[in-house]
């Protein structure tokens, strides 16, 4: 988002109006507000410009990462570029955080509209940054896929005995995308606003694959056990999420039961009060009593008269 800073024009227009009206008292406050607003705008403009630059670099990286040929790969460039982009994203994070702080601190001086405007500007910048980090992550994943394919192809064409280091606890690097390994890297390099940059370190390590170690059954079995453990843990994780999901679904049913019971209670209360009213009307209804007695006596007399 590139915004043009037209605050100078606005200032000159204001001065013109004020010189016409001669309202000198209000000026200092307006000028201070304007200065604060223009500071905000300057920073936002800078952030927008940096975002556009980083976008362009990301485009270049995407192009580089998509190349699939075996020999034309430029790993140095790609690494440099990813490093630069990572730095940029981090600095943009910090700048946006500062901008948010600034807009919060200016809350006292600004009106409601100006506040919502600064909030929406900050939110827009944040969403742009988030989408860019998503793209970056996608590019890194594509790059690791390509590296994997390249390695497989290289192995196909090279001699036998080229085995990859299994992801044992002995050392880093491995062909399989071990989630444990990703977790480790996630802890090493994280940022607060953007999504995690786990692909970057994985790239660097995969490029340092060492094919020196001998095929050892012991290490292999350790590796197998580790992979077993890791898959079990992943399964456990998924079971937990499923469990949480199901409990959450049932939550809704509990809510329905609650609503039904409340309805019932309300109905019963109302019916109770109706019956009470009726009872009141019946007991204190003298006219009714007189009428009933009248009818009874009439029937009694008729009965007695016709019988006798």
């Amino acid at each position, binding site marked *: 988002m590139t915004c043009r800073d037209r605050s100078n024009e606005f200032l000159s227009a204001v001065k013109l109006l004020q010189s016409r009206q001669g309202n000198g008292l209000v000026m200092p406050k307006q000028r201070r507000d304007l200065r604060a607003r223009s500071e905000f705008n300057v920073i936002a403009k800078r952030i927008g410009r940096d975002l556009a630059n980083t976008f362009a670099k990301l485009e270049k990286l995407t192009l580089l990462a998509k190349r699939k040929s075996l020999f034309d790969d430029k790993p140095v460039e790609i690494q440099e570029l990813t490093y630069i982009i990572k730095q940029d994203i981090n600095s943009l994070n910090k700048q946006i955080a500062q901008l948010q702080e600034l807009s919060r601190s200016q809350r006292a001086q600004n009106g409601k509209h100006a506040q919502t405007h600064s909030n929406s500007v900050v939110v827009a910048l944040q969403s742009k940054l988030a989408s860019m980090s998503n793209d970056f992550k996608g590019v890194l994943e594509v790059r690791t896929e390509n590296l994997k394919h390249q390695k497989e192809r290289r192995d196909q064409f090279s001699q036998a005995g080229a085995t990859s280091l299994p992801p044992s606890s002995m050392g880093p690097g491995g062909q399989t995308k071990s989630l444990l390994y990703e977790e480790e890297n996630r802890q090493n390099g994280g940022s607060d606003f953007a999504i995690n940059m786990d692909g970057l370190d994985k790239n660097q390590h995969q490029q340092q694959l060492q094919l020196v170690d001998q095929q050892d059954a012991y290490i292999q079995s350790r590796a197998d056990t580790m992979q077993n453990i890791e898959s079990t843990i992943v399964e456990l994780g998924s079971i937990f999420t499923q469990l949480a999901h199901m409990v959450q679904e049932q939550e809704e049913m509990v809510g329905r039961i609650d609503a039904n019971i409340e309805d019932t209670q309300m*109905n019963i209360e109302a019916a109770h009060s*109706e*019956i009470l009213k009726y009872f009141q*009307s019946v007991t204190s209804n003298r006219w009714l009593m007189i009428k009933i007695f009248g009818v009874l006596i009439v029937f009694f007399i008729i009965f007695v008269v016709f019988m006798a």
Partner: protein
Amino acid sequence: MKLFALSVLYKSPDGKVNQLKAAHELSSFGYFQRGSIKEFMDFTSKIIVERTAQCSRASVKEQEYICHVSVRSDNLAGVVIADHEYPQRVAHTLINRVLDEFSSKISQQQWPVIKESEVNFTTLPDHLQKYQDPKQSDAMTRIQSDLDETKIILYNTMEQVLERGEKLDDLVEKSEGLSMQSKTFYKTAKKTNSCCVIL
């Protein structure tokens, strides 16, 4: 799953093998046989280490025992005699650990010349005892068994959650019926109130 013996040997470059330290667990054998069995085990370990090349591991089947042997690059060797069920990986982990400890405690120059009685490495029997139960001592098997238990518990929990779902369904229906009935009750009460005003 039992471990019978754990020993550390030194294989000199000219092929001779010296036993540096050994620990045995012979309580399952009869009292009179223990001496001969111990000697037999030591002898077997020596021969196996002589036959194993440097920087390699092997697991040799011997009647009803398996000997796991590992010879390191600095000519230090470890032998574990176990039964058939003992997992190979744990045995080799044990050998690695014992050899590392040994090499850190006793310096390398002493290995060719030191005699068995002078070797000051007392933790060998403790290791032997600890690793009798691979599930507890080996971290990976322990984690594996814990995870499996947790998985079983979680499956049970899932089933119970499903039952809970069914019961909640039941409750929903009953509460809906109750709500309908109370509504009818209210309507009837209202009707009685409104219709008999003429009397």
